[in-house]
């Protein structure tokens, strides 16, 4: 089985889906000849032509709204934001046109919204955001955030085939840093299903995206300290896999929710709330959360960004406190 970069896995999924289904097309800025700001779509315009790999004018609200219209006509647009940050100007189109259409008037809106997101590379306040919360709060959307090349391919294929609007969070920091086994075959990863990334019995680390790797690293250190952490990779943020969350807490009795957006009102607040309500009887300690610092933006300079981002040490500190509880 080939070992691919996270980014290559995404490209594979796009290419395979475009070959499989002529109704799939791509739209975004600089995705054609240039291959996208991160080269994710490199080579696709050569294979599929300019009608199916569309370089849009600089108009996110317009082309996102247009994706909804194309989807209503039966196409399957894959809509790329150059950075997830810029989807803020298309927020209305996503939450009001797309998310509500099937429920409101029975029109399926099979759009995949590709969101290169996350920090860790001195991108500053407007190129590093984690806007999962913007979308995970909106019912009618599905929101996924793969952490591995395998899931990146499988979830993207599932998203494209899904008849609902799916917000697909691809972590920029993982693009070229993570390599993993990715089958050549046509597989999908089901939307809505979490995955136990590491089995353990002492406490549960519940996370997704880039912080999965932070958690796995922390888990190794904890193991050396005699604490056996289970790591749950949520993979889907909407709808949440409540039963997987409750199952791991039932098993360990202790939960730390880890995510990259700022701590307050981050997506892990919902996870913690589910545990505090439906998993209360399993709990042997407080439900802890580790997120980024509550700053208005992701900072630019490396020392600030290191301080800002949740790191292995932050996860370890929370786990040690909880393990000792």
């Amino acid at each position, binding site marked *: 089985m080939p070992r691919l970069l996270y980014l290559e896995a995404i490209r594979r999924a796009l290419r395979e889906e475009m070959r499989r289904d002529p109704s799939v097309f791509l739209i975004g800025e600089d995705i054609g000849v240039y291959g996208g700001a991160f080269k994710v779509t490199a080579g696709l315009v050569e294979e599929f032509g300019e009608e199916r790999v569309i370089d849009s004018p600089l108009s996110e609200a317009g082309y996102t*709204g247009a994706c909804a219209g194309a989807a209503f006509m039966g196409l399957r647009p894959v809509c790329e934001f150059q950075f997830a940050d810029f989807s803020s100007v298309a927020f209305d189109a996503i939450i009001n046109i797309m998310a509500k259409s099937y*429920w409101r008037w029975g029109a399926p809106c099979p759009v995949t919204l590709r969101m290169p997101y996350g920090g860790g590379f001195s991108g500053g306040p407007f190129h590093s955001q984690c806007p999962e919360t913007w979308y995970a709060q909106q019912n*009618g959307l599905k929101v996924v955030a793969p952490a591995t090349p395998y899931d990146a391919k499988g979830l993207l294929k599932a998203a494209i085939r899904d008849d609902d609007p799916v917000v697909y969070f691809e972590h920029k920091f993982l693009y070229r840093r993570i390599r993993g086994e990715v089958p050549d075959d046509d597989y999908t990863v089901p939307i809505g299903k979490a995955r136990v990334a590491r089995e353990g019995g002492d406490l549960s680390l519940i996370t997704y995206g880039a912080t999965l790797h932070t958690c796995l690293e922390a888990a190794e250190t904890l193991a050396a300290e005699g604490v056996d952490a289970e790591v749950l990779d949520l993979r889907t943020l909407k709808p949440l896999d409540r039963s997987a969350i409750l199952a791991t807490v039932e098993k360990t009795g202790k939960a730390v929710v880890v995510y990259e957006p700022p701590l307050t009102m981050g997506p892990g607040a919902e996870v913690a709330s589910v545990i505090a309500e439906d998993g209360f009887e399993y709990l042997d300690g407080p439900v802890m959360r580790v997120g980024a610092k509550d700053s208005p933006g992701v900072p630019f300079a490396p020392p600030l960004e290191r301080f800002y981002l949740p790191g292995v040490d932050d996860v370890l500190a929370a786990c040690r406190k909880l393990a000792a509880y």
Partner: protein
Amino acid sequence: MKAEVEAASKLDRQLLLHLYRTLLLTRAVEDRVISLYRQGRIVGGVYNEYGMEAISVGVGAAMGPEDVIAPSHRDLGAILQRGITPREIMSQWLGKLTSPTRARDGNVHIGKLEAGVLAFVSHMGASTPQAVGAALAFKLRGERRVAVASFGDGAANTGYIHESMNLAAVRRLPVVFVCNNNQFAYSTPLHKQLAIRDIADRSAAYGFPGQVVDGNDVVAVYLAAREAIERAREGGGPSLIECKTMRMHGHSEADRAEYVPKELLEEWKGKDPILRMAGRLREAGHLDDKVQAELDAEVRAVVDDAVDHAEQAPAPQGPELLDDVYATPL
């Protein structure tokens, strides 16, 4: 009147009577909704196109069966011609399960894929990129279909319209933009909304044709729309039609519109699109008292039936709310 009669004479009697009948039906539905509203039988607010019917009727008549419209909130006349029935429309006003939005949405927020009507989104401007996207789909698949985007003079100033028109222009998409300029956006008069005379001129900012049409002349609207739609269908790209008209009622029926100068209303009352079309048809010998009476009766029967149907239709209970949330359930 001369030019009007001449333009009309290019159309056959059947088409002219279709336009007239649709004007009557549109007005009749509006009148009935208003009277139900006054009786407290309508759910929510009431918006209509009173006095502006020629625009949506003319545009709707010019569309082909496979074409698609993203209507504004004052486009009943077009919707009625696309196979959405008066029964469905009345069900929508009464919040019944038989409405196209199954009582989840209301009033003018009607949409139906099979009818080529994209459900109106309240956010002004937000419907327009959807029409552009539909046109994109038509072009990508090589279909000879056209999308119509309809919006008001207020909505014209939203970013959505700019981005939509520019995108349509760059990709030469088969889309026709129809702006119904009724001189007000809620209470805001034109001069506080924009600083140019003709919204049609904005087409030059994108590189496609624009024209001003008398929005109270259903034949003029029809002819302009037909030409623009055929141009788009033949690969000629987008265009913009500005229909000058006047909003004769309040923004909603709850709005007494005291901010509208009385004289303006008086002036435009004389331009009522239905009376004008009637006069023209009579002049051309297509309409007399007998035909008028038949049409009135026919339209009344349709509306009566629609209201009866809607009143007897089942109302939601509550829990249906959570059915069909996802098109692909988990």
